[in-house]
């Protein structure tokens, strides 16, 4: 098929993809209850207002700085991890230079450099150097993905696909160039076109020289060629060829590849191999172009925008329409590099809960689906909700993200958007709630979601006031901590408790007082102890435990009861 038709097709697919991805920036978003949807037109208008406002103000200097520091130099990656920086820099510069200098040589290189010939130096040499840069970068990236697997770095098929695409593009290009070097039919056509040979002897001499020096494979040249023939060929080469074609040794990578091409020649024949490699190279390049907007490679558009927005706004957007747009821009800028998950302070909780969504990079992948309304499986949403909540709000993910995504804001909004959908989240009853209370985001949503959990808690357990008296002895309690057996009800715990003294009617507010909970365990009624509001009102100050004259570990027992109560609630919710 004609090259131009193939190029046109893939360019159209790429363009359609870009339009789809861009339209998502302005149409989707995370919506907690008090964040209304904003019409796309308004979002585009607000975004334009922001962009123009920044371009025509002193912020333009920030943008220029960001282009050099964040985009070209990739300072955020450089500061964190030199190996990753080397890989990205090699791939980025190698690939971009090949794209401009080689793929678009008719548009770019020929106009920039007079007398450009792809077979002359420095072009011949540089093409190989850039190719090798990309391959080295890809190799480092592969090594990184494999070696960091035990550190919870997730790699999807699409991540491998991106690396394979890059690798195949470069290798097929090198194979094609190598095949051209060794192909006799290619040699013959060039001789016919460019060389003015006076007789057959000259032809043989030139051929001998190219076999010796340039990796040509010719059946009628005896190996090794006679030195005098080669010397003569060198002269002819100097007259006829060298002006437009330097030695193939300059193409160091491709000439190494030329050593494997004879195997292909043997199977497919000389010119068919050339066609095969040409198609392999061209089709991978064009497939990559078409695939680009539908994959993480879209980051080459989204990440620069995200980084500049971060630099200009400092993650302090005010306009609600722009906050939504920024969220979607952020989601599309993710390269699934996993840096956030490697640095995540909560990453060890993954090892306990085995929920991938605790890892920020994995949250991002599924939030794309949730934002698009494509993920409705309650089990997945519940795991996502837990993943969003089991977060220490240390903001490390946002600090380290190489694409400058405002993950913190994205996760806060997503957390309350999901909590608002109605599923209770038991992790709310943990200290993960502390930084959320401190930040005072979505205060009403938080209280509503909290009420859902506390209501379930109240429903799930028997309460002292509901029970028919007298309460009799149950079977022996086994909660792992037996220190409650030492309680002789002196009530020192209750008397010293700062929570108990905070209420006018503590029994009503707390269900049971600390010493009563110990007594309840003593008579074998764990359920009753677990259902006491007291355990959730415990400030964990340990005064009771410290002051107990008989070493009852009250506060530790409260923690055990809380763990047990939440497990019971979760079991009830899942059954």
């Amino acid at each position, binding site marked *: 098929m004609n090259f131009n038709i193939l190029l046109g097709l893939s360019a159209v697919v790429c363009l359609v993809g870009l339009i789809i991805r861009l339209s998502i920036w302005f149409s989707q978003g995370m919506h907690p209850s008090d964040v209304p949807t904003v019409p796309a037109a308004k979002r585009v208008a607000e975004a334009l207002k922001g962009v123009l406002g920044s371009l025509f103000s002193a912020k333009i200097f920030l943008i220029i700085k960001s282009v050099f520091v964040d985009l070209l130099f990739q300072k955020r990656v450089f500061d964190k991890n030199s190996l990753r920086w080397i890989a990205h820099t090699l791939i980025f510069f190698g690939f971009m230079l090949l794209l401009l200098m080689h793929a678009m040589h008719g548009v770019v290189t020929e106009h920039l450099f007079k007398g450009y010939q792809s077979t002359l130096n420095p072009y011949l040499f540089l093409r190989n150097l850039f190719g090798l840069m990309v391959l080295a970068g890809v190799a480092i990236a592969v090594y990184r993905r494999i070696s960091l697997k*035990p550190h919870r770095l997730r790699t999807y098929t699409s991540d491998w696909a991106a690396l394979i695409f890059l690798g195949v593009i470069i290798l097929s290009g090198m194979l094609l160039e190598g095949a051209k070097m060794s192909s006799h039919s290619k040699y013959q056509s060039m001789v016919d076109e460019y060389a003015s040979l006076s007789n057959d002897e000259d032809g043989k001499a030139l051929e001998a020289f190219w076999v010796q020096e340039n990796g040509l494979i010719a059946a009628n040249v005896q190996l090794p060629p006679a030195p005098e023939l080669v010397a003569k060929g060198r002269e002819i080469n100097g007259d006829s060829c060298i002006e437009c074609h330097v030695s193939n040794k300059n193409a160091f990578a491709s000439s190494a590849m030329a050593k494997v091409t004879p195997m292909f020649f043997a199977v497919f024949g000389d010119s068919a191999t050339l066609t095969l490699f040409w198609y392999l190279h061209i089709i991978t390049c064009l497939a990559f172009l078409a695939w680009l907007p539908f994959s993480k490679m879209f980051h080459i558009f989204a990440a620069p925008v995200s980084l500049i927005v971060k630099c200009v706004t400092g993650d302090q957007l005010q306009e609600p329409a722009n906050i939504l747009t920024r969220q979607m821009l952020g989601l599309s800028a993710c390269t699934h590099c996993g840096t956030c998950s490697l640095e995540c302070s909560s990453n*060890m909780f993954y090892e306990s809960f085995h929920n991938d969504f605790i890892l920020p990079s994995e949250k991002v992948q599924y939030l794309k689906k949730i934002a698009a309304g494509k993920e409705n499986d309650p089990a997945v949403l519940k795991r996502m909700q837990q993943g969003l909540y089991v977060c220490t709000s240390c903001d490390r993910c946002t600090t380290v993200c190489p694409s400058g995504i405002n993950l913190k804001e994205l996760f806060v909004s997503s957390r309350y958007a999901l909590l608002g959908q109605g599923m209770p989240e038991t992790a709310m*009853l943990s*200290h993960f*709630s502390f930084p959320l209370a401190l930040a005072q985001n979505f205060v009403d949503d938080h209280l509503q979601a909290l009420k859902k959990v506390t209501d379930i808690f109240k429903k799930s357990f028997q309460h002292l006031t509901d029970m028919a008296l007298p309460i009799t002895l149950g079977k022996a309690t086994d909660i792992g901590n037996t220190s409650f057996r030492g309680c002789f009800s002196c009530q020192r715990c209750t008397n010293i408790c700062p929570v108990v003294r905070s209420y006018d009617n503590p029994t009503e507010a707390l269900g049971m007082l600390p010493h009563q909970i110990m007594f309840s365990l003593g008579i074998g009624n764990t359920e009753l102890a677990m259902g006491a509001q007291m355990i959730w*009102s415990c400030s964990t100050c*340990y005064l009771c435990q*410290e002051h107990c004259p008989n070493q009852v570990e009250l506060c530790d027992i409260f*923690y055990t009861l*809380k763990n047990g109560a939440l497990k019971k609630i979760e079991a009830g919710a899942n059954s």
Partner: protein
Amino acid sequence: MKYTFFQGCNIPIRIQQYATSTTAVFAKFAIELEVIPEFNCCGYPVRNVDEKAYILPSVRNLAIAEKRGLDILVICNCCFASLQKAKNVMGKNRQLMDELNTILAKEDLHYSGKAEVKHYLTVLYEEVGPEKIKAQRVNAFTGLNISVIHGCHVLRPREITHFDDSFVPRITEELLQTTGAKSLDWRGKLECCGAALAGINNDLSHKLLKEKIAGAQEAGADYITPICSYCHLQFDTTQKNIQTGAAEEKLLPVLLFPQLLGLCLGLDEQSLGIAKNSTITAEDIQRLNSLLGPPVEEKKKKKAKVAA
């Protein structure tokens, strides 16, 4: 002398001044604090949910310090208690230790209990000592009243934390004395700031906090000095969040101990990040500086008394 510096999750993003002032003060005594980026959360936030999930992160942090061949210095009480608890549990429960080590082995880490966990006050008191601190002072405060709030998890449970006397802690008192400031005797000194209930039961959390603010103010405190990062956030952030705006309402400013000590050691208020405490005003800092003067030698005082 060198320690790995455990800052936890709150300090690097919300209270950087605690870390920078501590590092600056320790540098004065030639103690280096090495920041380890691999450290993760101490596990404390998940304790209500699952005890084992609470222990594992601290065991990992201890294993990282062990691999680095250094002990851990902690400035957050809750992190301190979590790390100490993990050590305690590992010491008692060999089976759990093996189980958690299997998880750590994936990252080429191993816990054997070699790394010790030390609170920064203990290190200041035991390894530097009040005498050496006094000798290094260039200034000391006069007429400065401080309400210290120790925070619960550095003191209790004493079998886990091993920090001073949990009923009558004197390390903090003696260290505070080196600055010349007066540590007030007040009723909230050993009590709860309410942080553990924030976001779970805000009313109760605020009630406990207000009780402490009122207590310190009634005792005549110029500043409250929280030892724990959670207490700090309660006083420095939540206090402002819950202000009603009433005319008679008075803000109780927060000053961290390394900031206080740093000023006496001749460190400037910028490097101690004093203005980063959101409850402190420019006038507060001015007044604070005006209370600083050359330290008065105690021996001279005694002699003067004898002479009188």
